[in-house]
């Protein structure tokens, strides 16, 4: 190990001037920020921020257009989930957080539908593989939300009904190459 020691100059080793310099910087910040805090109280200079803090639950940083947030299940025009319970997402998920129970769909063309569809976000690593695996574009991660804290593990398992209700973030960009906006208009497989 190489230890680099820095020799202080005479002025620095007196501490006094260096301390005064440091105090000047912090005092300047204090006075400037206080000035704007007080001005904000009177409704002036609202555009100049007095602090860099973002007060999280009330204010949020806008997320990127391609940011993967909470899951969402797309629905058909009649409101039923578009998912055909093919289990591809459940299979591909690296942490096994999707749990689907399949049931028979009355329409023979569709064959199957999810009786229950749970996403356990306590395990999810937000890799987005479920989204990519889905053959019918049923599961999307374009809600732009982060999981809300819950009091039990059960609170953090999202069920089908909940996932169906979520709406996409406006202007969500699905990928760099195909700048699709929001949910898909046409059904790619004619379902």
């Amino acid at each position, binding site marked *: 190990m190489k230890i680099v020691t820095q020799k202080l100059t005479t002025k620095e080793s007196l501490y006094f001037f260096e301390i005064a310099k*440091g*105090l000047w910087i*912090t005092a300047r*910040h204090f006075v400037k920020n*206080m000035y704007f*805090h007080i001005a904000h109280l009177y409704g002036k200079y609202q555009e100049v921020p007095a*602090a860099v803090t973002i007060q999280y639950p009330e204010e949020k940083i806008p997320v990127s257009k391609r940011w993967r947030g909470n899951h969402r299940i797309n629905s058909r025009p009649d409101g039923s989930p578009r998912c055909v319970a093919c289990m591809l997402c459940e299979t591909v998920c690296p942490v096994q957080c999707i749990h689907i129970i399949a049931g028979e769909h009355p329409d023979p063309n569709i064959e199957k539908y999810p009786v229950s569809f749970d996403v356990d976000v306590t395990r999810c690593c937000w890799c987005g593989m479920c989204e990519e695996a889905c053959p019918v574009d049923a599961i999307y991660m374009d809600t732009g939300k982060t999981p809300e804290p819950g009091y039990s593990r059960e609170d953090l398992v999202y069920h089908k009904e909940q996932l169906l209700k979520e709406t996409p973030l406006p202007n969500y960009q699905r990928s760099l190459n195909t700048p699709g906006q929001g949910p898909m208009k046409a059904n790619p497989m004619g379902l």
Partner: protein
Amino acid sequence: MYLDIIITLIKIAIVFGFVLNVAAILSWAERKQSAVMQDRIGANRADVLGFRIFGLFHPIADTIKMLTKEDWVPPAGDAFVHTMAPFLALFTALVVFAVIPFGDTLHIAGRDIPLQIADLNVGILFIVAFGGLGFYSVVLAGWSSENKYSLLGSLRAAAQLISYELALGLSIVGIVMVYGSIELDDIARAQGQYILGFIPYWGIIAQPLGFLLFFTAAVAETKRVPFDLPESESEIIGYFTEYSGMKFGAFWMGEFIEVVAVAGVVTALYFGGWQIPFVNNQGIFFPGLFTIPLPHVLIVLLQVAAFGLKVLFFCWFMLLVRWTLPRFRYDQLMAFGWKFMVPLALLNILVTGLFMYVF
């Protein structure tokens, strides 16, 4: 006779009301001021019925938390001493204010009321002595915890306090020489003179080096950054590791009271005490030019307000220092105290003596 006691009790109520309230608000101010200095917002989440008033409920919330926490005494330790140490910390910090004058003598209804709780003729010695007694809280806290690390922490703290107590005492000697008294009231009064007719003869003018030394040593006595090795409860195991609940809170409050006390002593010794420049007991005046008379009670009230403002300014300044500087390493701390502060304090006495001999 009874009236004297009542007047003294009122003075005690005013002074201790001021000190304790400022100390409580300092715990809020410390968070808020550090936040503003670092471009943050600071604690503002405690709310009562939706009102947050800039986080001013946080000190109350803290107190409730401290009071309702379990009060744990180490089973192997000495319960009596363990309980006494935080009280000692509070007491020694508070009692310093008894000798600090906060206003000129008030003449009301034929009475002379000195605005000072106890006009001791050994004022400065009293302050230094009770500063010294403050070690005991530290040492006893560490010793009675029956924890090796606490004991080591308290030894470290005691070593620091004793080293800086020396520089503190020596730096005050300059002031005593210049004003020729160790009574704080005399010192405050003497600071109402002017040099060359218009520069107020405050301690900072008469003893600039003495002020720097005293202030540094006093910050070290309060055990705050950059001299916070004894405490720094988050990183270093210090003397109050084994304390919980309000006993820990008492150490914590004692620290803030010490800040107010140091601000008071610095004001009294080096910043004119209750003197306002160009205001004497007749009114506003400019030496040799004019005088605007003011009523006596108003002048005294202005002086008390001036004293309060100066104390608040120094509290602010000590928080500013605390949130600006990094901590000393222990060997640096000791070297700084013994090889820098003490010789400089001696030099200060020598130079002061030479000046007084020559002029």
